[in-house]
C-alpha cells in the first residue's frame, strides 16, 4: 500500500496539498505507449483536481515557448536514487527512467460555450499548491517525454471533454477552441484550431540536431530553470530545489549559473528579453545543427548579434514568407523586417514557428518589434 510505504511524506503532502490519496507510484514504461496518461501515474485528474504524484516536481521556465496562449504545468520525476547531471548550456543529463510531463490547459472562460477558453497571462488562479483546480481550468493535452535505454520518446495524450481521462493521440489532434479576452470592456473572441502534434512532429522541435535526430527535452536547461517557483512549501529557486531533492547533481554556485531573462519583465534589458524569447521559440530549429540550419539563420542563445541572427541577411527559402521584405532584420525598421512579419502571421507557409501555434502571440510580436526598432545601422545594398 502506498500509505504504508510513504506514510510520513504522504501525510505531510496530504496536509499541504490535499492529494495522493492512494495514487500508485509513478510508472516508468521502458517501452511501448500506454493508452492512457493515467498509466504513468504522474498526474491524475481526481476529486476536481489535477494532482501530482509523490516525487513529481513541478517547474516552469524564465521564458516559455508560446503555444496559443495555453498555460502549462511541467513536471519532472526520476527513479529513486537517480540524479541528473548539471550542464551549463545543454539539457541536463537525465538518468534513464526520467519522466517529464507537460500539461497544456487554459483558464475557463466564465459562462462561455464549450470550447471557450481564456486568453490571459495571469497564472495566479491556476494553482492549488502543486496541481490544478479543475473548476478553474480546462485541460487540453499532456505530453510525456520519457528517457528510455535507447533515448527519449515523446508521447502525446489528449484530455476528454469530461476532463477525467487523457488518452493516447499518436497522430495528434485538431481541436477547435475559442480564445476569450480577459481584458475588461468588450469581450473579444478568436476562433482557432488548437493542434496537438503527432509523434513525428514532436521531433520537429525536440530533435534539435537533424543529423543525429535524437529527441531531447528543451526546457530543463540551467538558463531556463534558474528562477524561483511557488511550491506548496513556499518559494524557492528551482535548481536549488531539485538539488535538495537529490534530482540534480553538480550544481555550481548560484552566481555561476546562467539565467535567461523573463521575456515579460519590464525591468530586464530589452535585448535580453528578445534573445530569451527567440531562443526558446525559435532556437530548437534555428541552431547550427537544427532543422533550419538550411537557412543560415540561427536564433538560439549563443548566436552573435550579426547576420547569423538575421541582421541585414537576405532570406534563403522564405517564399511568400518574405512579406515582400528584403532582409530578416532591418535595424530600426521592424515593419521592413521579415522576422516579425512571419511571427505575426498565422498562415501555414508564412508563419514562424512553422508548427506549435495557430494564433499570433501579440505580446511576443510587440517585443521583437521593439527590439528591432531599438537597433541601429542600415542594410545598404551594394551594386
Amino acid at each position: 500500500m502506498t500509505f504504508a510505504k510513504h506514510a510520513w511524506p504522504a501525510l505531510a503532502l496530504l496536509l499541504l496539498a490535499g492529494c495522493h490519496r492512494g495514487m500508485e507510484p509513478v510508472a516508468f514504461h521502458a517501452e511501448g505507449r500506454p493508452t492512457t496518461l493515467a498509466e504513468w501515474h504522474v498526474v491524475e485528474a481526481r476529486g476536481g483536481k489535477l494532482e501530482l504524484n509523490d516525487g513529481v516536481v513541478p517547474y516552469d521556465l524564465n521564458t516559455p515557448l508560446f503555444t496559443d496562449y495555453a498555460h502549462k504545468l511541467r513536471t519532472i520525476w526520476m527513479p529513486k536514487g537517480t540524479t541528473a547531471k548539471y550542464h551549463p548550456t545543454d539539457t541536463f543529463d537525465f538518468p534513464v527512467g526520467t519522466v517529464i510531463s507537460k500539461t497544456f490547459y487554459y483558464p475557463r472562460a466564465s459562462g462561455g460555450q464549450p470550447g471557450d477558453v481564456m486568453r490571459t497571462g495571469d497564472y495566479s488562479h491556476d494553482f492549488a499548491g502543486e496541481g490544478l483546480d479543475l473548476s478553474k481550468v480546462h485541460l487540453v493535452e499532456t505530453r510525456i517525454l520519457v528517457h528510455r535505454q535507447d533515448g527519449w520518446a515523446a508521447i502525446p495524450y489528449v484530455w476528454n471533454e469530461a476532463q477525467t481521462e487523457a488518452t493516447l493521440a499518436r497522430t495528434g489532434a485538431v481541436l477547435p477552441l475559442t480564445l476569450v479576452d480577459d481584458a475588461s470592456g468588450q469581450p473579444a473572441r478568436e476562433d482557432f484550431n488548437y493542434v496537438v502534434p503527432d509523434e513525428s512532429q514532436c521531433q520537429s522541435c525536440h530533435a534539435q540536431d537533424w543529423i543525429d535526430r535524437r529527441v531531447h527535452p528543451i526546457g530543463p536547461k540551467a538558463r531556463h530553470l534558474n528562477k524561483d517557483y511557488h511550491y506548496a512549501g513556499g518559494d524557492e529557486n528551482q535548481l536549488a530545489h531539485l538539488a535538495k531533492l537529490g534530482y540534480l547533481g553538480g550544481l555550481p554556485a548560484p552566481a555561476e549559473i546562467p539565467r535567461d531573462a523573463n521575456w515579460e519583465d519590464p525591468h530586464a534589458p530589452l535585448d535580453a528579453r528578445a534573445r530569451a524569447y527567440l531562443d526558446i521559440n525559435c532556437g530548437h530549429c534555428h541552431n547550427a545543427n537544427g532543422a533550419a540550419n538550411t537557412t543560415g539563420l540561427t536564433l538560439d542563445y549563443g548566436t552573435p548579434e550579426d547576420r547569423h541572427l538575421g541582421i541585414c541577411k537576405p532570406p534563403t527559402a522564405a517564399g511568400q514568407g518574405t512579406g515582400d521584405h528584403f532582409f530578416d532584420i532591418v535595424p530600426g525598421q521592424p515593419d521592413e523586417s521579415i522576422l516579425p512579419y512571419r511571427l505575426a502571421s498565422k498562415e501555414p507557409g508564412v508563419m514562424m514557428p512553422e508548427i506549435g501555434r495557430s494564433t499570433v502571440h501579440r505580446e511576443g510580436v510587440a517585443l521583437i518589434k521593439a527590439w528591432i526598432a531599438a537597433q541601429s545601422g542600415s542594410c545598404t545594398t551594394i551594386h
Partner: protein
Amino acid sequence: MRKLVLAAALGAALAGCGKSEAPPQNAADASFEAKLQEQLLDAKPGSVIDIPVGHYTLKRGLSLRTDGVTLKGAGMDKTVLSFKGQVVGPEGLLVNASDFTIENLALEDTKGDALKINQGRNITIRGVRVEWTGGPKTTNGAYGLYPVKTQNVLIENSVVIGASDAGIYVGQSDNIVVRNNRAEHNVAGIEIENSTRADVYGNTATQNTGGILVFNMPNLSKAGHSTRVFKNKVFDNNLGNFAAKGAAVASVPAGSGVVVNSNDKVEIFDNDIADHKTTNIIISSYFSTNYYNTRGVAADYNPYPKGIFVYGNRLKGGGDSPDGVDFKMLKTAVYGLTGHFPDVLWDGYFDAKDIVGGLPPPADRICIHDVSGVLNADGPHGYKNPSTDTKPYDCTLPKLPPVVLDPEPKAQG
C-alpha cells in the same frame, strides 16, 4: 431552407465555431489521414507504404523520420493527396530520413513546400506530380520538390506546376540527377542552388518566369559548383514574376531561359532554348539581385559566376521584350527600338582581384560558343558602357564528368 440551416449548424459544429476557410473533411478522408500518419509513424527500414487510387483531402502536413521507407501511389493522376484544406503545415510531406523513395502520386495545393526532404542520403523522387491547382499565385507554396542538404539524389519523370518560388529545387546537396521532368507555371522551373555535382537533363521547362536556374546564395553551408545543364527543352518561359519580393527568384526577369547566378563550373550544352522575351541565357552575379550588403552577406561569399561554359545549344528567338525598365532601355540603346537582345546576357560583374592581363584565370572564364551574340550589360556602371564584343568568351573549359549515382536507385517498383 430548413435543410440549409441544419447543414450550416452541422458544419459549424464539425469545423468549430464557424471557421469557414477549410473545406470540411469527410469521415473517409479523416480516417485515411490518420491511417497514413500511423503508417508513417510505424514505418521501419524496408517498409513500403502503398497508397491506393483515390483523391484524399488532408488537413495536416505529414512527416517521416525513418530511413529506408518507400511511399508509392498508383500514378500521378490516380493517387492524389490534396492539402487544399490544410490547417497545419507548412509542408505536404516533410522527410528527415535517408534511403527514401517516393513515386507515382500527386501532392496538391500545400500551404508551404509540397515535398521537403531535409537531410538525407539516397533520395529518389519519381513520377510525382506537384500542383497548385489555382494557377500561379504568390500565395502558393514556395517549392514543389525540395531536397535540401541531401546526397545522392534522383528526381525523374515528375511534374511541378505553380510553385511561387522553384518547381524543382535542389539546395545544398551533392551528387544530383534531375532528368525527364516537366516544370510549368512556376517562378523558377528547375533550380539547383548551392549544390555540387548536378546533372540536369531531358527536362522540359516552359511557361515559367525562368526555365532552369543555377544559383549560389550567401551564408549557406556550402557553395555550389559543377552543374551540367544539357539536352533540355527550355522554351517560352515568359510568365510574369509572381514571387514575393525578397525571395531570391524575385530578381529573375520574366522571359529568362537558363540563368546562372554566382555559381561556378556550370556547363550548358545541347539544349533547345527558345523564345524568351528577356533572353535565352543569362549569366549574372549576386550584385544584380539587389540583396548584396556587407552586413548581411558572409565575407567569404563569392558573388561571381566563374568557369561557365556554353556551347552546342540550339537557340532561337527571344530578347525582343526584356523585363524591367533598365533592360528595356538597355535593349533600345544598344539594338534600337525594334532590335532584340542576343542569346546571352552577362551582367558584366567580374572578380577584379583575379584579373591578369585583362582576363580572369583560364579556369574562371566565361566561355561561350554557338550563340547569336553576347551582351555585356556593364552592370557595375549602371549599364552605361555595354559591349557586344564576343572575343572575351572565345575560350574552352574542361568538360565536367557525368554524375554517377552511387548507389544506383532501385528501379521503379
